[in-house]
C-alpha cells in the first residue's frame, strides 16, 4: 500500500512541476469539408515528440510546453497531415481543420509524421473502425454493418452466421457494454440479430476496448464498444442515402448556424416483407417482418468555451403472423451533453442520458387476447473531467450514476380471455454509481503508463419481495422491502493498469491488467439471441460477475508504418458466472432467480494481427487461438468444460483492392472452429418416440465454419454537387452449407433409425446497393 502511495506522490508531484513556466496550446480538430470533429487525431510538437497527445471524443486537444517556437504536427489516418508554426509565449487557442485524402491511391507518406501511436501508446486490446474503413467491404443484405465488420478483428467472434452478435475474448454477448453516444444499447440487434442497430450513415467512430478498459467505463465484463454518432455537416447542407434490395437509407444533415452548429437525421427501413402482401392467403398477407430506425443529432456552440449536443436513437422491429401473433421491440436512447472548457487544460463533459429497451407481444387466438410487456430503462448522469497536465500526461476523473428499472414481464389478458390470467412480475430497481480516476503519463522517452481506479457501488433497491431459495429451487424465506429501501449494496474496486515500453522507434511491448464487474445480467438460454431475453440486476441471490484480465503484447510497424503488426496474449478469470438449470423457466417467472446456477469461467488466448494500412491493396489478416471454459458444481461433475462460445481457431482475411478510380474490389475469408455443443451419445424410447441420452455438457464440436465474401464498388461520376456509387456483394460466394444448428430425430423414412439433421442459413446471398450523396 505504502509503495503505491509513494508512486502516486511522485506522479502527482511531476504533474505539479509541469505547471510552471509552461504554456498550453489547445483547440478542436475538425474535418475541413464537413466540420465534423475528429476523434483520436495525433497532435505533437515536432521539437518535443514526448508531447504527443490524442484529440478526445469531441475533437479537443491540449499540449503544454516551455516558452519557445515550435512546429505543431497533426496527423490522422486517412487525412493529409498538417503542420502549424507557433510561437508559444502565452496560452494559445489553435483550432485545426484537416483535409481528407481523395483516395488511398494518392497517399503520400510524409516521413516526418509519426504514425506510430499504435506502438507508443499504452493502450492495448483496442480496436478502432471508422465508417470510411468499412465502406468497400463486402456485406450481407447490402447493408454495411459495423458490428459484423468488427467480427473480423482478433479476439472478436461472430455469435452466429450472418448475425451482429459478438463474443469478445470468451465473453458472452451480454458481457459487452454497447454505447451509442454514451447511452447503453440493451439489445443492439434488429430482426433477431441479422442486422445491428447501428446505421453506418450516422456513425463517426467505433472503438472496441477488449483489454485495457479505461477507468471511465464500467458495468460489463468483457468489452466496451463505444460508438459515436456524426455531428452533422456544419458547413453546408447534404443529402445522402442508399437504395438496396432489402432496405433503404436516407441521411440529411446541415448547419444550424455555419461553423457553430449542425444537425443530422438518418433513417432506415427494411421492406423484405413487402412480398408477403402479394400473397392471396389472408394470413400471409397480414404478416409482417420489418424494422426501421432513426438517428438524430444536433449540436450548437455557445461561445468559445461551451458546446452542447443533443442526440437520440429510436428503432423498432415488427414481427407479425397473421392476426394471431405480433411482437414489436426496440431501443430508444437520448443523450444531452455539455462540453465546457474551463481553461486550456481542463475539459469537462456533463451528460444526461436516457435509454430504454422494450418488447410487446400480442397473442390473439379464439377468444384469447393476451399482451406481454417487458422493458429495461435507465437514467444516467455522467460527469467526466479531463485535465491535460503536460507532455504525455493526462488525468481523467469523474462520476457516473445510473438509475435502472427492469420490468421482467407483465402479462395482460383481456377480461374475456380464456386460458390466461393477468400476471405481473414486479419491477426491479437499482442504482449503479461509480467514481473513477486515471492518469496517463510518459515516465520516460520510452515508458508510458496508464493507471486508474474505478470504485463502483451497486445498490439493489426495494420495493419488492426478495426470496431465498433452497438447493431444489423452492423459496424458503421472503424479505419484503418498501419503496426506496436498500436491499443490498455491492461495492467493488476495479483497478486498471496498462503500460508500454518502446523497444525501437517502431516496436514496443505492452502489458495491461484490468478488473471489471457486471451487475446487469441477460437471461438467455437458447441458441440464438431473442428479443424476449430479459435483463436482471444483481440481487441477494445473484452476485456481481467479476473478471480479472492480464494481457501482454508486442507491437511492431514495418515499411514506413505501412504495415502494422501486433500480437497479444491474454488470460481472463471470471467469477459468479450464470447458467441455467435444466428446463429453466425464464419468462414471466417471479422466481426466475431459482432457475439459475452459478460458477466460474476462464479464457485465454493468443491473437495475431497484421494490417496493411494503405496502398493499392489494403486489408488485414487476423488470427486468434483461444480457449474459454466454465466450471459449475451442477455440470459435468464440477470439472472444467468448454463454454458454448469456445472456438479454438479463428481466422479472418480482408482485402480491398483499388483497381482504378472507378472500381474497387474486395473480399473477405472467414474460418473458425465450431462451437462446443452437447450432442446425444445414445437413445431410448418414450411412447414409441426416440429420446436421447446426453453424457456431458459441450462434449462435442460443431463442424468448422468457413466462408468467402466478395464485393465490387463502382464509383459513379463525381461532380461538385453529386456523388454516387454501386455496391455489389456476394455473401458466402462458394455457397458452403455452414451448419447453423444440428438437431436429432427419428428417421421419418425408417422408424427403426434415428438421424442427425443439419440446418444451414445463408448460401450465395447476393445484394446490390446504390448509394448517393447530394451536396
Amino acid at each position, binding site marked *: 500500500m505504502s509503495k503505491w502511495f509513494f508512486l502516486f506522490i511522485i506522479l502527482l508531484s511531476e504533474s505539479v512541476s509541469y505547471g510552471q513556466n509552461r504554456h498550453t496550446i489547445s483547440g478542436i480538430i475538425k474535418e475541413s469539408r464537413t466540420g465534423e470533429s475528429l476523434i483520436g487525431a495525433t497532435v505533437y510538437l515536432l521539437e518535443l515528440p514526448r508531447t504527443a497527445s490524442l484529440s478526445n471524443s469531441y475533437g479537443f486537444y491540449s499540449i503544454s510546453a516551455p516558452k519557445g517556437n515550435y512546429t505543431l504536427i497533426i496527423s490522422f489516418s486517412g487525412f493529409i497531415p498538417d503542420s502549424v508554426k507557433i510561437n508559444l509565449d502565452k496560452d494559445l487557442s489553435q483550432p485545426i481543420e484537416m483535409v481528407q485524402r481523395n483516395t488511398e491511391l494518392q497517399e503520400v507518406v510524409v516521413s516526418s509524421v509519426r504514425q506510430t501511436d499504435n506502438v507508443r501508446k499504452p493502450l492495448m486490446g483496442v480496436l478502432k473502425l471508422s465508417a470510411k474503413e468499412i465502406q468497400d467491404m463486402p456485406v450481407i443484405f447490402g447493408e454495411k454493418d459495423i458490428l459484423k465488420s468488427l467480427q473480423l478483428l482478433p479476439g472478436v467472434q461472430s455469435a452466429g452466421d450472418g448475425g451482429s452478435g459478438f463474443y469478445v475474448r470468451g465473453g458472452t454477448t451480454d458481457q459487452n457494454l454497447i454505447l451509442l453516444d454514451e447511452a447503453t444499447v440493451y439489445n443492439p440487434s434488429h430482426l433477431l440479430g*441479422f442486422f445491428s442497430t447501428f446505421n453506418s450513415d450516422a456513425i463517426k467512430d467505433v472503438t472496441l476496448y477488449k483489454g485495457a478498459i479505461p477507468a471511465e467505463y464500467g458495468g460489463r465484463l468483457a468489452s466496451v464498444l463505444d460508438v459515436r454518432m456524426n455531428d452533422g455537416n456544419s458547413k453546408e447542407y447534404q443529402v445522402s442515402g442508399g437504395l438496396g434490395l432489402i432496405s433503404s437509407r436516407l441521411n440529411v444533415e446541415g448547419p444550424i448556424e455555419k461553423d457553430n452548429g449542425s444537425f443530422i437525421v438518418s433513417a432506415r427501413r427494411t421492406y423484405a416483407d413487402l412480398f408477403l402482401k402479394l400473397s392471396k*392467403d389472408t394470413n*400471409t398477407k397480414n404478416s409482417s*417482418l420489418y424494422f426501421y430506425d432513426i438517428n438524430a443529432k444536433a449540436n450548437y456552440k455557445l461561445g468559445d468555451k461551451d458546446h452542447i449536443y443533443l442526440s437520440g436513437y429510436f428503432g423498432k422491429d415488427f*414481427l407479425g*403472423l*397473421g392476426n394471431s*401473433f405480433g411482437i414489436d421491440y426496440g431501443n430508444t436512447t437520448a443523450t444531452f451533453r455539455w462540453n465546457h472548457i474551463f481553461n486550456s487544460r481542463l475539459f469537462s463533459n456533463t451528460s444526461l442520458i436516457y435509454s430504454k429497451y422494450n418488447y410487446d*407481444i400480442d397473442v390473439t*387466438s*379464439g377468444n*384469447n387476447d393476451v399482451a406481454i410487456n417487458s422493458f429495461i430503462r435507465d437514467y444516467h448522469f455522467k460527469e467526466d473531467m479531463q485535465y491535460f497536465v503536460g507532455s504525455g500526461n493526462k488525468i481523467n476523473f469523474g462520476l457516473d450514476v445510473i438509475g435502472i428499472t427492469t420490468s421482467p414481464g407483465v402479462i395482460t389478458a383481456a377480461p374475456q380471455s*380464456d*386460458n*390466461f*390470467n393477468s400476471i405481473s412480475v414486479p419491477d426491479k430497481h437499482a442504482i449503479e454509481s461509480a467514481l473513477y480516476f486515471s492518469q496517463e503519463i510518459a515516465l520516460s522517452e520510452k515508458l508510458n503508463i496508464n493507471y486508474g481506479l474505478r470504485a463502483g457501488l451497486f445498490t439493489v433497491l426495494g420495493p419488492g419481495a426478495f426470496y431465498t431459495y433452497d438447493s431444489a429451487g423452492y423459496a424458503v424465506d421472503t424479505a419484503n422491502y418498501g419503496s426506496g429501501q436498500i436491499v443490498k449494496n455491492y461495492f467493488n474496486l476495479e483497478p486498471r493498469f496498462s503500460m508500454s515500453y518502446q523497444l525501437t522507434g517502431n516496436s514496443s511491448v505492452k502489458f495491461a491488467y484490468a478488473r471489471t464487474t457486471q451487475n446487469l445480467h441477460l437471461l438467455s*438460454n*437458447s*441458441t*440464438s439471441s431473442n428479443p*424476449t431475453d430479459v435483463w436482471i440486476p444483481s440481487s441477494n441471490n445473484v452476485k456481481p460477475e467479476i473478471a480479472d484480465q492480464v494481457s501482454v503484447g508486442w507491437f511492431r510497424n514495418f515499411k514506413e508504418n505501412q504495415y502494422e503488426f501486433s500480437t497479444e496474449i491474454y488470460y481472463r478469470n471470471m467469477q459468479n458466472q450464470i*447458467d441455467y438449470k*435444466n*428446463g429453466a*423457466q425464464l*419468462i414471466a417467472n417471479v422466481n426466475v432467480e431459482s432457475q439459475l446456477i452459478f460458477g466460474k469461467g476462464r479464457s485465454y488466448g493468443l491473437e495475431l494481427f497484421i494490417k496493411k494500412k494503405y496502398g493499392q491493396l489494403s486489408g488485414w489478416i487476423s488470427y486468434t487461438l483461444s480457449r474459454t471454459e466454465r466450471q459449475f458444481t451442477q455440470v459435468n461433475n464440477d470439472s472444467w468444460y468448454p463454454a458454448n462460445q469456445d472456438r479454438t481457431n479463428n481466422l479472418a482475411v480482408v482485402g480491398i483492392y483499388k483497381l482504378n478510380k472507378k472500381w474497387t474490389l474486395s473480399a473477405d475469408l472467414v474460418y473458425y472452429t465450431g462451437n462446443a455443443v*452437447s*450432442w446425444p*451419445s*445414445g*437413445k*431410448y*424410447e*418414450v*411412447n414409441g418416440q426416440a*429420446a*436421447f*441420452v*446426453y*453424457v456431458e455438457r*459441450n462434449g*462435442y464440436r*460443431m463442424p468448422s465454419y468457413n466462408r468467402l465474401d466478395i464485393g465490387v464498388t463502382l464509383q459513379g461520376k463525381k461532380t461538385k454537387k453529386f456523388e454516387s456509387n454501386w455496391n455489389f456483394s456476394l455473401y458466402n460466394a462458394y455457397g458452403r*452449407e455452414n*451448419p447453423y*444448428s*444440428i*438437431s*436429432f430425430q*427419428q428417421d421419418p423414412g425408417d*422408424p427403426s433409425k*434415428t438421424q*442427425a*439433421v*443439419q*440446418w*444451414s*442459413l*445463408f*448460401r450465395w446471398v447476393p445484394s446490390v446497393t446504390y448509394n448517393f450523396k447530394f451536396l
Partner: protein
Amino acid sequence: MKVLTPITFILIFLFYSCQKVVTLKLNTIPPQIVIQGEVTDSAGPYSITINQTVDFYADNVFPPVSGAIVKISDDEGYTDSLTEFSPGIYSTHGLQGKAGHTYTLSVFAQNTNYSAVSTMPMPVKLDSVTLEITSGFGMQRINAIVNFQDPPGIANYYQFQEYINGQLFNKEIFIFDDRLSDGKYISATLRTDSSYLKSGDQLKVNMFSIDQNVYNYFLQLRQSSGTGAFNSTASPANPTSNISGGALGYFSAHTTQSQIITVY
C-alpha cells in the same frame, strides 16, 4: 407458453436455406437402464417397462432387462409384486390406482435398487375436443383444441395424447401447466408442426392429470432433442427423472380420460 414458436416459424420461412441429414462421429456409451411405467385411475393391470439404452446410430431395438424384482405400493399399505409378463415388461395383479393417492415404485435390477414416488392428482374433466384450422405460408393445418376448466388455487399439470385412426401420434409431447392460467377455462391447442390431421380421420384425445415431477420430465424431454433449430435450448441434457438410483425414464401416477371425435 411458447411465444417464440411463431417467430421461429417466420424465420424458418425466410432464412433457412437448406436442411440435410449428416452423419456425426458420436461416442459409444455403455448401456444404461431405462424404467418407464404408469399407474392410472382406470382399471389395471398396469405395466412397468425396463430396458436399456443403445448407441445413437444403432437400430431402435432396446434390449429388455429381465429378471428384475418390481414392486408398487400405495399409501394404504398395499404392495403389488409385478410379474414379468413378456421380456422386460412387468405387470401388476390387484393394484387399483385412485386419485389423491401416492404410489411408490421399487425396482431391483442388475444388482441396483431404483425407486420412484408419484402422487396421482385429482381428475379434471375434459369438456370437449374441438378443431382449429389455420392457414398461412402455403400450408393448411388442422389442430385439436382441448377444452376444460382448470381448478383454481392449486397447481395443475396436464398431459395429452392423440391417437389418429388408432395410431398414437408421438411426434409431439403435449403438456400444459396452469402457471399462467390458474382457475381459467382453458382452450389449449395441441399444436403440431405440420398437417397430420386430415378430414375424415378419427381422433382420440387422452387427457392425464400428472404430477409436477412428471410434467418437468416431459418439459425437459421436449427440449432435449438437440442443439436444434432457432430458440432451442443452448445446453440440452437428460431430463430430470423422478426415479432415484440413476435410471432414465419416469414413473407417473395419473388420472386418465378420453374423447373421440371425427375430423371434419
